[in-house]
């Protein structure tokens, strides 16, 4: 019997809507209306910001939240497009890779708020007198906080595509374009989504920080939760700040439930493993859409377009490594390429020196490095303190599966919450009790990032094999011996992952955390973050550049000399299983 009925679930009874269709339709239409409404607001002339300034009326908060969320969404889309292009270029072209990857490495360690200084001026000039310029500057700031680690993850996935699948695509005559969408992107998907979620927390932090910004004599206050908080600080209104925190909590929960959980649950099929995992992630939102009938039918044309798009027969200009006979790459082109890189690097160095030396002397450089060391000391002390507190707590929680299941999402949620919204509360306390700013402003740097340590340690302790625990207790290992010989080595790789993220985040946060104000009271802690923040406010570009460069150098050195060796050690010696 050759004939068969071919069943396509989505086409069956496609035209008879069910109850889930109605719910889903309302959600979709609502989202579209909100996007259009938010979009209209951005094309208003700049002067409208003065006519309808940010007000502390809580009834405005939903609109502000919408504006903030839209910026976030736009930045994520930009980041994804950038990631696809940049990572594909770096992974497919050896020559591009030589420049692009080190560049990415440096960009990762540049303090994002430093970027804002230049981009605000640039984008404002691009759309003179229009809110769009300021909006774009803000979106760009968020983009810079998200794109790099996403790109890295994509690039690494593309370099590690399994050889047999690569051969299968070649053997079945897939074009370069088809291969990209059928193999490279799906294979990179889980890592990319995880990194996008990580980027989100950074993104919230910077969207809030970059809505109300002063560069020299340009002050922009974009309607949003960040500027609401800025106004609350100016007016010394603690209740308003409470409202803002509450709104942000709701926004993050909505984002997580409506966007990320469905994506994670959907993307579970891209995980590259040959056996089914125990507990696949679930999402009520995704289930809802999967239960709809008419709406799924509506998505069919999109799926068809997507299929046609990814099936285009475009081949990359670079030939596949097939040509073994001419496998030695052209030396001449290499030499030209190297010369080109050297010349442009030299030119850039010359311009930078020329620009900076006009207003800066060696003493400025020493000063900046001095401040840098102060901030470095803060980061080290804070990471150490957070480790002392959260490692035992995390282990305690992680070894109790029931508890870990409940605490883990909370810790991840706290990591995603933009801690700078809570800064005013702490600043209020410092001002109120007259505490030393140099010491008490410091904890703000790690307020948002300490949770990375906690949830990674919980994950490590949860994954700790129970046979090793049983062996330890049957050998009567107790007390410090149990910690040193059993648990700490077991969770070490996880802890390092968390600590690296926490330390990177703390550096970034220093620009916001070392300078704080409450009404007319201004607090400053001596450090590189405050140095950059002050230079930004004064519009002193040479010092901003110097500060950023110094921070870049310190962060890169710190990563290379401390974190990477520790990470490599953990992966080599202490990875279980």
């Amino acid at each position: 019997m050759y004939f068969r009925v071919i069943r396509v679930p989505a086409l069956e009874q496609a035209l008879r809507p069910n109850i889930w269709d109605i719910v889903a339709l309302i959600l979709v239409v609502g989202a579209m209306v909100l996007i259009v409404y938010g979009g209209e607001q951005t094309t208003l002339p700049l002067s409208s910001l003065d006519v309808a300034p940010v007000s502390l009326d809580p009834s405005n908060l939903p609109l502000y939240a919408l504006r903030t969320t839209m910026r976030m969404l736009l930045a994520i889309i930009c980041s994804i497009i950038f990631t696809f292009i940049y990572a594909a270029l770096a992974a497919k072209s050896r020559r591009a890779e030589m420049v692009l990857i080190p560049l990415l490495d440096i960009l990762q360690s540049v303090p994002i708020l430093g970027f804002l200084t230049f981009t605000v001026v640039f984008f404002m000039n691009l759309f003179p007198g229009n809110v769009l310029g300021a909006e774009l500057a803000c979106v760009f700031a968020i983009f810079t906080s998200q794109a790099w680690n996403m790109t890295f993850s994509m690039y690494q996935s593309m370099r590690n595509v399994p050889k047999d699948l690569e051969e299968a695509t070649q053997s079945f005559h897939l074009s370069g374009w088809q291969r990209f969408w059928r193999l490279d992107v799906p294979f990179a998907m889980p890592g990319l989504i995880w990194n996008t979620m990580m980027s989100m927390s950074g993104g919230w932090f910077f969207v809030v920080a970059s809505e109300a910004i002063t560069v020299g004599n340009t002050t922009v206050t974009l309607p949003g939760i960040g500027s609401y908080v800025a106004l609350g600080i100016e007016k010394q209104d603690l209740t308003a700040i409470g409202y803002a925190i509450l709104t942000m909590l709701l926004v993050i929960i909505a984002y997580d439930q409506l966007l990320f959980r469905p994506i994670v649950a959907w993307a579970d099929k891209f995980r590259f493993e040959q056996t089914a995992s125990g507990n696949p992630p679930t999402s009520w939102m995704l289930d809802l859409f999967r239960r709809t009938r008419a709406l799924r039918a509506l998505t069919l044309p999109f799926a068809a377009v997507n299929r046609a798009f990814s099936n285009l027969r475009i081949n990359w200009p670079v030939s596949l490594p097939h040509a073994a006979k001419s496998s030695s790459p052209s030396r001449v082109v290499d030499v030209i390429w190297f010369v080109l890189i050297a010349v442009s690097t030299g030119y850039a160095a010359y311009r930078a020196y020329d620009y900076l030396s006009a207003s800066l002397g060696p003493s400025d450089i020493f000063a900046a490095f001095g401040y840098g060391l102060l901030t470095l000391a803060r980061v080290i002390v804070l990471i150490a303190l957070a480790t002392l507190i959260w490692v035992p707590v995390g282990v305690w929680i992680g070894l109790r599966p029931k508890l870990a299941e409940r605490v883990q999402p909370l810790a991840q949620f706290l990591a995603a919450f933009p801690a700078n919204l809570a800064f005013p509360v702490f600043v209020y306390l410092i001002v109120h009790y007259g505490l030393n700013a140099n010491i008490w402003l410091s904890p703000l740097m790690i307020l948002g990032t300490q949770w990375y340590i906690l949830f990674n340690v919980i994950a490590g302790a949860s994954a700790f094999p129970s046979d090793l625990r049983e062996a330890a207790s049957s050998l009567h290992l107790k007390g410090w011996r149990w910690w040193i010989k059993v648990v700490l080595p077991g969770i070490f790789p996880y802890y390092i992952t968390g600590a690296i993220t926490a330390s990177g985040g703390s550096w970034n946060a220093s620009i916001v955390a070392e300078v704080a104000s409450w009404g007319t009271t201004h607090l400053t802690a001596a450090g590189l973050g405050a140095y950059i923040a002050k230079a930004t406010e004064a519009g002193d570009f040479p010092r901003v550049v110097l500060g950023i460069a110094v921070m870049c150098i310190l962060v890169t050195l710190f990563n290379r000399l401390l974190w990477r060796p520790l990470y490599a050690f953990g992966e080599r010696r202490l990875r279980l299983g």
Partner: protein
Amino acid sequence: MLDQPNKATLIDIKSVCRSFPKGSGEALQVLEKVDLTIHAGEIVGLLGRSGSGKSTLLRIIAGLIAPSSGDAMCRGETILGPPNGVAMVFQSFALFPWLTVLQNVELGLEALGIDAAERRKRAIAAIDLIGLDGFESAYPKELSGGMRQRVGFARALVVHPDLLLMDEPFSALDVLTAETLRTDLVDLWIEGRLPIKSVLMVTHNIEEAVLMCDRVLVFSSNPGRVAAEFKIDLPHPRNRLDPTFRQLVDTLYARMTQRPGPKTQPAGGAGNIPGTGVGMVLDHVSSNVLSGLIETLAAEPYNGHADLPVLAGQLQLEADEIFHLGESLQLLRFAQLSEGDLVLSDAGMRFAHLETDARKKMFAQHLVEYVPVMGLIKRVLDERPSHTAPAARFRNELEDYMSEDYADETLKTIVSWGRYGELFAYDEQSETFSLENPN
């Protein structure tokens, strides 16, 4: 167009060589002057040890790598990239985990730009043929290994290739599953229901080759060459217990353990182990396995003399693995490989009856005496006042003779054997050899 190839000739390989760059810059010859012709209507097997270049040859025919010299033609045209009408089945299945069974099967048709209705029809037909009905919407991770490889077959068959290439397609499956799949495939082939003209399969399983192929080419290693060709005229379905079948298996075993000609015979009698002197490539075999094998050989029923197919059957080892073990024993002078037999030497017999410490001493003594690189390391450590030496010193020397991967493998073997024989200590952190023993 004087020598227009015969229409029934699918693949024509003429004196193909292939080399890969080696650590020291020289090229490592993997294939040397290989000739092969594949006609329509036959199943051809490439049989050989790992590292004999048979997979490389398969990939040259698949258009995945290019030969360094020589001609590779498919239907009279030089192979530049994957030729049309050739499909491949992979050892690791190479299924896309994010595509369902149906989507995986359709992939090759999609790339050919075949329209959706036709695609679906052909995919369903291929799925039916290979016995996967009902699994269309399953994801590969939900399937067992055997079912996954069936998807691999369906995906290759659906494009109706003239030639089906199979790269050790059953070696990742358990014994029972592999056997079912083999017989299913042979049945379909005999009944003429497979939409293909010929099959070329790579294998290191001797019985599999005899069971399925019409023609078997035995490859010798280092560099890979066609050492012998056997025609197998047994009618299908073939019976493994048939005396003629057994005879063929024994012949192939003997052919594969035969030493290369006296010209390339290394001076120490190391048999098939590639390289000579310090440059000998040592595959990692645990000293526990070696001791275990010596004990098995010394005991009943072998009493020091075993037929390789029988031994492989009892120990559930692939031919390739048993060769490996046999060669390591031969290198250390504990046994001799000859004509498909493994014979324990006097030293091997003595070893089998010693206590642990005495065994270690004897093992160490044989290492220093018969494995040149071991002797070198021992000498260097003895001579240096600090009695330590970095592993890099020996790795560099190894890389003069072999690729980086082989050098790593050899070094791993050196460390593991040296530790067992208590010849030296090795610190993994600092990668140094030393004479001191931790107390």
